[in-house]
């Protein structure tokens, strides 16, 4: 069973030879080939080389076309500050949500670094074909809006100027939609959508329901229509309050962060496929054996739950050693030997 078959079967809740392992390894892979993070986030050949190398080393079940979370905002006109050994940061470019005329709907092949993701998706697919899922990463509407406007002003304006925020979100949704369709067209099997601003730690449940949920629904539908094999929703933090809504988004897979208990999440998700919830910091603070033990705990907890994929609650930190990530695959292999699935 190859990784693509394994992941697709896992998503459907069908039996697999072992539990799929899909840790979020992005910039952490750059050091495998001695690249800086700057090189990683700007050059598709670096992304491809490092993702392939990482998969050979770790043996996990996914490769990612991802650079950082500022791609969409930059392509819409925001200034991005690059650093050699850190992810770039974006500067707010508008003061009011109503200033959408100062932003552009990007041309995905030309503006900013969208082409880095498109090219990475294409080349990764050429290399792995249908043996391993190529997952392209896009950013959700609320987070893009937060980057364009600044998080604090966006939060205030959600209350003070909701109609203008809705208009801005219509625009960011359109950008996410165009970009998502383009990465599928370029060769990605599936999409992972990150929207940390939509976390209940940041906005109340009613804002998620009103401003985010209908947009996620439309986005995931349009990606499916374009041929995405699966949509993966990843919102960080304690999302317990909004987990019951995830089913309505049309996502096929969701990330559960470390603050939420896996079994409880499984119940709230009513059978949806889920991944998590290894704490990212353990890849820095813990030994290989300790990480493997944590992975084992997740596997045991979810042993009777169909549709569980072993993974991290968020991105593996860029300064973590990758040996620790290998512990997840080893744990899954050992678990298979001990428990015939």
């Amino acid at each position, binding site marked *: 069973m190859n990784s693509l078959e394994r992941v697709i079967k896992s998503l459907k809740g069908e039996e697999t030879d072992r539990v799929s392992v899909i840790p979020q390894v992005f910039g952490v892979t750059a050091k495998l080939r001695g690249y800086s993070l700057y090189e990683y986030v700007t050059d598709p050949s670096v992304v491809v080389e490092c993702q392939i190398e990482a998969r050979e080393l770790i043996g996990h079940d996914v490769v990612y076309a991802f650079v950082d979370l500022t791609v969409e905002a930059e392509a819409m006109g925001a200034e991005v500050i690059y650093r050699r050994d850190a992810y770039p940061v974006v500067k707010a470019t508008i003061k009011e949500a109503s200033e959408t005329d100062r932003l552009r709907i990007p041309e995905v092949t030309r503006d900013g670094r969208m082409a880095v993701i498109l090219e990475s998706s294409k080349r990764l697919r050429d290399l792995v074909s249908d043996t391993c899922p190529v997952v392209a990463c896009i950013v959700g509407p609320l987070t893009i809006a937060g980057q364009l406007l600044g998080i*604090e002003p966006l939060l205030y304006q959600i*209350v003070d100027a909701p109609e203008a925020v809705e208009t801005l979100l219509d625009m960011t949704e359109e950008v996410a939609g165009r970009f998502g369709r383009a990465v599928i067209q370029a060769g990605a099997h599936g999409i992972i959508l990150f929207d940390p601003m939509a976390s209940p730690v940041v*906005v109340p449940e009613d804002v998620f329901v009103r401003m985010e949920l209908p947009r996620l629904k439309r986005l995931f539908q349009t990606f499916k229509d374009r041929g995405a094999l699966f949509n993966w929703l990843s919102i960080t933090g304690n999302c*317990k309050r909004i987990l019951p809504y995830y089913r309505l988004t049309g996502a096929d897979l969701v990330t559960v962060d470390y603050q939420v208990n896996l079994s409880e999440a499984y119940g709230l998700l009513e059978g949806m496929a889920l991944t998590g919830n290894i*704490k990212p*910091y353990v890849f820095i603070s813990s030994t290989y054996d300790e990480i493997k033990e944590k992975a084992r705990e997740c596997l045991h907890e979810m042993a009777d739950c169909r549709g569980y994929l072993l993974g991290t609650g968020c991105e593996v930190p860029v300064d973590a050693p990758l040996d620790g990530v290998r512990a997840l695959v080893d744990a899954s292999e050992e678990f298979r030997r001990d428990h015939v699935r």
Partner: protein
Amino acid sequence: MRRGAKIETLIEAIIGGEAQRSVQIAEQLLKEGLTVETLIQEGLTSALYSLNTKCTNEDFNLLEIMLAGRAMMAVMDNVVCRYLPPSRTGETRPEKTIVLGTIEGDIHELGKHVVKILLRSAGYKVIDIGKDVPPEEFVSEAIKHQAGYIGVSSLLTPTLPSIKKIKEILKRQGREDIRVVAGGAAVQQASAEDLNVDFVSGNAFDLLRYLDGIRDELT
């Protein structure tokens, strides 16, 4: 009784994040003869501690806390300030002074702003030294402003090694009396020992409780 009811209304308006209404109610209360000290203690402080209770359960979200903080600051800036005597210069109390910044490599300031608003509302003097601040500067600013605490914020795990340096620098300068507290998404996964700090704060109120505890020990 009537005054109590009005103060309840002020508390509700603040917690509900209604800045303009909070200012109007506070003005009205003072016009009706309420002292500014009572307004602070029974109105603003009660609102602050109601939020505190809210923050200890799963209802916590930044938006509601920020809106309440904004309403509280509106009352402080537009009403309370006009009734309080100007503070005397040179009256710095280390146990009520904190230097607050986002560590180098990180430019996120939202959490720091929330902390700033709440600590100021609770009567702390907050020196905001901004974002992307090197550890050395945290120390020099704390010494310069005679602060009893350094508050360091981080959203990004790669910045954690820089946080660890702050106490090392304090030690080299013989200023281990200055306590270091860390907050923000990145530090939540680590322990105080991992980060070489005195306290890792889960949220702004956690920090407030910690500072109040230390202050009570010292006074």
